[in-house]
């Protein structure tokens, strides 16, 4: 492979020839094999130098420790959720008569905000929209509303629901569970 511009007698042509030749020779590096065997180690060492917090003596130990942390976090969440569910299922299913009476009094006295609906279904939907909880809680609330309706029906209060901790899972749900 020769360069036609090469002409030692003409400095400008020679300069161009050398420029082209160097460019062509550098272009041959494109197909040169690249050794990446030490690349990972060099990147890791560079990261450790710039971010001392991630420094660890053994990357395998670091990986195992990270996996253990994930397992511990998952176990903790599972235990908390199981505790909440067991606690909810072990409580009385609906409000007691005394609680219902208290709620009724509060409603009549205007101490509790009341939303008026025309049916049990609407009341349930309203409650579900507001509390966004488990299905069993919605059914439990429906049962509680049932009791309220029965009690205040004669006073033209067609439906009302109250969201709060007083509503607990129903007997039906506990049986199904």
């Amino acid at each position: 492979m020769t360069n036609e511009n090469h002409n030692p007698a003409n400095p400008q042509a020679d300069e161009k020839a050398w420029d082209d030749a160097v460019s062509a020779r550098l272009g041959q590096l494109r197909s040169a094999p690249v050794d990446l065997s030490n690349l990972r180690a060099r990147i890791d060492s560079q990261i450790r130098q710039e971010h001392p917090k991630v420094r660890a003596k053994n990357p395998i130990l670091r990986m195992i420790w990270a996996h253990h942390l994930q397992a511990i976090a998952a176990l903790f969440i599972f235990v908390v959720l199981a505790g909440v569910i067991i606690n909810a299922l072990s409580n009385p299913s609906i409000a007691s008569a005394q609680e219902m009476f208290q709620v009724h009094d509060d409603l009549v006295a205007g101490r509790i905000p009341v939303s008026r609906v025309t049916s049990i279904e609407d009341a349930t939907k309203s409650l579900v929209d507001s509390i966004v909880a488990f299905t069993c809680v919605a059914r439990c609330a429906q049962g509680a509303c049932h009791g309220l309706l029965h009690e205040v029906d004669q006073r033209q209060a067609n439906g009302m629901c109250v969201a709060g901790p007083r509503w607990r899972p129903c007997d039906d749900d506990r049986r199904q569970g």
Partner: protein
Amino acid sequence: MVLRKSQVSLDSMEDGLPDDRLPEKTESRDPQQILEGFSDPQILEALSQLPDEMRWVLLFVDVEALDHATAAAVLGVAEGTIKSRAHRGRAMLRRLLLPLAQDRRLITDAEKP
């Protein structure tokens, strides 16, 4: 792009080139023939001695064959700057390589540009 660390220093050229890469000693040799006498690691070693701005331009323009506009966009400089740096970088590379080629008698003083 990652370039391998050069395994052969320029000084090691004193130890001789592989026989099949030695260009024939003629009175007037083509620049490409002379450059073919250098191995890839030797070219990379010379390239690594260039200033950063010129080395990156040569890597983009000559090695990676990017056009001047793309290289200018990547490096955040004007296209004319790319052309200028490429030209000066090649000249520097040539000045780095030629004395070694001369020491090895790959070229004569008369051939030296």
